[in-house]
């Protein structure tokens, strides 16, 4: 499952390819040939909701990574994009111009996840070399290396105050770190399989984790005690979780090609989103800008956008030539970012043509 397995061939570290801007109208040049015609996609008009259906179009196509991209995240102010890849590097891109701003090197194995600190000071990266590196965005260098995981580190996130970091990995634990001192504060024996996602809620009092054991657990951030476990009947591998902005729900992607919205208080699944393909990789899902839609990558090379309430697919974004592992939503503007695997290795930035000015 690891997209950054240690035994993979070392890809030759090809030189950085200049990112190049693609004109949004110049669609022909970048649209890959599709082997089969895609299944019918519901027309946008049919499902248009009160706030208008999104119509995301490619604004930039960026390349630079030499191996599969595993994670993509917008900075808190939306000005930058960070990508992590199996090529052991983290790259920072400008969301305005699409240029590479910086390549961060230091990890000795592939990187599975990257996270911005909410205060805009730091970036963290989780690697198969069992460490987490914290990079100062001011100095653009590693300021702390967090050591403690006994196997690949797969997922990370900062607390809202940026003083804590939570990580999960193939050693099946969740660790809470003191960012300033680079030490483990707590190790939670969280799961019985690799931990695939871990995150704080909006006020930092809860931590949620999910794993290949198919369980989603909610923890008290202060005491480290398990508060509850959300589980479906047939325990499909859970790929990714994310709290809603108000922390009342958790958006969970599972490898039965389904995304579910769980009510954390009643432990009930309140929404189910289907149509995409997710059977092999840990795909990211997110709330699209405006918090009215859900967005996720898919192993069929497309990106799906659902209406949060009606659960209908409102747009399918095409363009990538391999499974789309990572998607991310811009914090303020109607913009999405997506990244694809080995056969493609490009990053696309999508802007909603229907967005209000």
């Amino acid at each position: 499952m690891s997209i950054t397995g240690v035994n993979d061939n070392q890809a030759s570290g090809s030189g950085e390819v200049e990112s190049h801007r693609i004109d949004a109208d110049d669609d022909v040049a970048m649209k890959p040939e599709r082997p089969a015609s895609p299944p019918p996609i519901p027309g946008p008009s049919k499902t248009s909701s009160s706030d208008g259906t999104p119509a995301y179009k490619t604004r930039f196509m960026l390349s630079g990574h030499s191996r599969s991209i595993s994670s993509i995240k917008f900075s808190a102010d939306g000005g930058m994009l960070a990508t992590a890849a199996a090529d052991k590097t983290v790259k920072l891109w400008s969301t305005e111009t699409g240029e590479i701003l910086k390549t961060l090197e230091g990890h000795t194995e592939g990187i599975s996840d990257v996270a911005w600190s909410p205060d805009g000071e730091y970036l963290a990266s989780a690697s198969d070399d069992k460490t987490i590196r914290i990079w100062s965005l001011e100095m653009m260098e590693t300021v702390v290396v967090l050591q403690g995981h006994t196997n690949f580190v797969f997922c990370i996130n900062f607390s809202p105050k940026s003083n804590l970091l939570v990580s999960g990995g193939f050693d099946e634990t969740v660790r809470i770190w003191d960012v300033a001192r680079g030490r483990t504060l707590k190790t939670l024996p969280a799961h019985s399989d690799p931990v695939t996602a871990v995150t704080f809620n909006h006020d930092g009092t809860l931590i949620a984790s999910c794993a290949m054991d198919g369980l989603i657990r909610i923890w008290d951030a202060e005491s480290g005690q398990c508060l509850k476990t959300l589980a479906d009947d047939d325990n499909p591998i859970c790929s990714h979780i994310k709290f809603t902005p108000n922390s009342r729900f958790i958006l969970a992607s599972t490898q039965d090609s389904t995304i579910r919205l769980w009510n954390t208080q009643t432990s009930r699944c309140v929404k189910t989103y289907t149509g995409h393909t997710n059977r092999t990789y840990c795909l990211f899902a997110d709330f699209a800008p405006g918090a009215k839609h859900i967005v996720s990558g898919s192993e069929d090379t497309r990106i799906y956008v659902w209406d949060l309430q009606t659960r209908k697919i409102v747009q399918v974004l095409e363009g990538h030539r391999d499974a789309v592992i990572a998607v991310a939503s811009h914090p303020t503007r109607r913009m999405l970012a997506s990244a694809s695997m080995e056969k493609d290795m490009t990053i696309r930035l999508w802007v909603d043509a229907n967005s209000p000015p």
Partner: protein
Amino acid sequence: MNGVLSDPFTISYPTAVQTSLNSGASFAKFDPSGSYVAGGRPDGSAVVWDLDTKAPIRWLEGHVKAVTSVDWSRNSRYLLTSSKDWNVIIWDLASDTDPVRRRATIRFDAPVVSASFHPRNSQIVVVLLSPGDAYLVDLRKQYRSRVELCEIQEESEDEGQGSRARSTMTVVRFDPTGRYIFAGTSAGSNIVFNTRTKTMIARHKISGAGIIRGLDFAKGGRRLVTNSSDRVLRQFNLPIYMSSTAEGEYIEQELEPTYRFNDPINKNAWHAMAYSPDGEWLAGGAADNASHKIYIWDLANEGQFATALDGGPEPLLHVHWHPKKASIVSTTNVGNILVWHCPTPERWGAFAGGFEEVDENVEYEEREDEFDIEDESEIALRKQKAEDEEVDIDGLVEDQSSKPADLTQRVADDDEDIVWAIEESDDDHPGWRMKVVVEDDVDGL
């Protein structure tokens, strides 16, 4: 937030020490958010601890003699330290620089006993100097001033008054609204000043109290507890003061305590006391030089003694209650800050999905249709229907813990005392962030 998920049945005072912070401090106070603790040290420095990481995050070094008090501004951005070296320093924690930038240094001509911020504007500070005089310092450009708060002495009619001499102030602080300044005196009375006019508006004699040693308010500001040299803590309900009285006019009123708390066995004096955030509990730190004891009284239950927390052999110097939670910090005389919390037992049932622990056996009643075989498509349809219900992912659930905090803010905004206080506001906005400073020498500790 997690209150919603955790057990609703919780006792609301702490019961056990969670951590001990070795800080060299002689007293420690939570910030208004409850995320940090500031401790003042006898060597003149102060230290800010992050309670999430249980690590010191800022060292404030500006005094050359013992720090006598610390106070946090309402959104925790500014921290004030007062010292025996005649200075009060206001630190700006939003500054990235190390050492932390000072916003102001206020110099006096005597050792400073205590200083505190106005609850609505950190540019207004009330200060008590060692001989027993109080000053209101206004740092705002428009009002820049330093005014001594003077007690109006009764005109001595008989010789008994004359011999009593001038009483000195022993403790001075704002009430939670900031409209009034309360001062305790060596003559066993509480004097109330209007903050804006700086005039005395009331004097409350407390018979038998002796010297007033400390004051604390319940959150709304309607109840006051005093500590005095007769080793009794007294709680009072405060009268409502007229917003404007004529010059020189004041209320002379003796207050009758609603409760008296003392230690009938050891006859201990008290170093400090603190209300719980909901005002239903009172904690008293016993001045016992062989043990570390915090007494808790249940105010909702006629002031009954609830428990005595035992913090070990290091004598207690100070206690402060968390602004939102059942947590206390108490400081020992060797400089350890004990953080008390209310431990919740691990609920192992939480590890299993859809499993609920019960305290007692419950007779299970089977529903009539519980084991009926239902058509799968029907189940799916029902699920579909249920999923049509709208969900609100943006709106925040009302946080119970933030409610009591608002009480103090709910004073009419057309109140001229409040309007005066919030003029020329400080930059203490709720959105500021304490920058995370990565330790250079991570291993060096």
